């Protein structure tokens, strides 16, 4: 029987949420094709993996070998390529983030198989896959028909829902990839967590500031609003280019593309490049002095007014709901 393979990503002894999204997406393909759904994990913590049962995954190929303790893209993609071949995998689903994207590219070239990145929908029609993928930073999207014995997809996090669908038993099958030390071409020698700081890519709510904030010294206003909402702090390109905020906070075409539940744009006029990076948010709140600012055209809610007046008032009102 052909298989659908999803990557179960374990980071710092936690399964990444996107893995459950992949399981659900994979389960839906399995139901349509009658293929078997398999997970693959690089981990030594088998107890932790039990959690996947909740989402309906009943078999995991486990790579539990000290060579794989630290991430290396060439090593991990080589191992995955062996899993795909050994288990007759037809569909490979990986997360569309830094690791998933680079692994998928190498894997696709290695297997000379079709690969569509950053999919926001994936359906099966007559044995052929149709993937929807944003292009031009989300200003447009294409539907692509993919055919081939092996098909690889990376799925955009936060877009596919993780649905609970409990299963009773989890089978874990160990697999020892045939790799040597010279397959580990890159070594992560140091890593830092942004402690206590939410990343705009992972947050349910993002609060961003633009030129209207007037200077880096006023950014505490944005941070305070983010704090009340439990949100990540983002920034417009103007603010990043001015050196007021770090690039990893930039939302937009040359920054990050986000799709949170709520996006709050403060003092951001809404240049087309910025809109491209946040227009797929579920709800958008804009605060801007200029009632004609383009940001209001994409907003669900808007406050026309001075942000130095509006944000403190909004914080006060929001706090009432938190009590």
């Amino acid at each position, binding site marked *: 029987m052909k298989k659908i393979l999803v990557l179960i990503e374990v980071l710092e002894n936690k399964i990444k949420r996107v893995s459950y999204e992949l399981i659900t997406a994979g389960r839906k393909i399995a139901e349509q094709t009658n293929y078997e759904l398999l997970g693959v994990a690089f981990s030594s913590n088998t107890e932790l993996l039990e959690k996947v049962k909740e989402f309906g995954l009943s078999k995991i190929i486990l790579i539990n070998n000290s060579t794989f303790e630290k991430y290396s893209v060439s090593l991990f993609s080589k191992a995955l390529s062996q899993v795909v071949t050994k288990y007759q995998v037809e569909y490979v689903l990986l997360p569309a983030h*830094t690791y998933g994207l680079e692994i*998928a590219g190498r894997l696709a070239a290695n297997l000379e198989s079709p690969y569509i990145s950053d999919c926001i929908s994936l359906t099966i029609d007559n044995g052929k896959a149709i993937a929807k993928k944003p292009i031009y930073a989300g200003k447009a999207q294409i539907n692509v028909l993919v055919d081939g014995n092996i098909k690889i997809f990376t799925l955009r996090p936060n877009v596919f829902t993780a649905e609970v669908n409990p299963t009773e038993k989890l089978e874990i099958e160990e697999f020892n990839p045939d790799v040597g030390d010279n397959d580990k071409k890159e070594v992560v020698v140091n890593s830092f967590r942004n402690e206590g700081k939410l990343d705009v890519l992972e947050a349910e709510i993002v609060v961003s500031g633009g030129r209207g904030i007037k200077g880096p010294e006023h950014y505490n206003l944005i941070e305070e609003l983010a704090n009340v909402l439990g949100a990540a702090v983002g920034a417009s390109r103007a603010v990043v280019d001015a050196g007021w905020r770090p690039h990893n906070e930039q939302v937009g075409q040359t920054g990050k593309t986000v799709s949170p539940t709520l996006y709050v744009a403060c003092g951001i006029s809404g240049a087309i490049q910025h809109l491209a990076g946040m227009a797929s948010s579920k709800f958008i709140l804009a605060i801007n002095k200029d009632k004609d600012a383009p940001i209001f055209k994409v907003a669900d809610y808007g406050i026309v007014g001075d942000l130095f007046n509006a944000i403190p008032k909004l914080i006060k009102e929001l706090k009432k709901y938190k009590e």
Partner: protein
Amino acid sequence: MKILVGISRVPDTATRILVGKDGKSIDEQGVKFIINPYDEFALEEGLRIKEKFGGEVVTITVGPEPSKEIIRTALAMGADRAVLVKTNSSFDSFFTAKNIAIYAKEFNPDIILFGKQSVDYDSLAVPAMVSELLNFPLITIVSKLTIDGSKVVAERDVVGGREVVETTLPCVISAQKGLNEPRYPKLPDILKAKNKPIDERSPQETSPMYEIINMEIPHRARKNIILSDSDEDIAEIARLLHEDAKII
């Protein structure tokens, strides 16, 4: 040091994208094309590596004939020469990667630099595919790069943090914004670039693996409740966030 830099021709990021007549690609009428912004960081880094260690910077483009305009810009920035593999296909990353790898095998670069993604199809696939085809190490989305002998140290942002990755030459690097500040070509460089060679080639075809069914412009209906900053209006916005968006 032999430095190969991949550059591609993309619509200016300020372009309003419209669907073309074929329903599968953009309407190019009136669209201004530029060097892919991330490729400028890759090229600038390549030029700095050459300035430090000596050598040659060659750009490679897999794209249509008018790519020559952006290739001239790259040559004006300081690349020594360019290769253009002429094609009208641009969606198929494997085709692009394969043709870059074919040239790389002939040129034998010490380092291959790309922008982290091309801002048209946003696939982020070509650097990884080229590295695999050449069996080179790969570090993507790099915002700081140091080369010392054959040792390469790169820093990059990953979700929720940052990491330092080490590898050795030859390798493939993809550049993120922040890696450097790309230079603007000066007039004498622009004139000089006119005489630099562009090696035009025909692509090696690969079997097509995709069919674009259609291209569409996403549209999301918005509520568009725009109020003032009066106390009552802001209270109403907070209420909407609570009851309607249910986020607090």
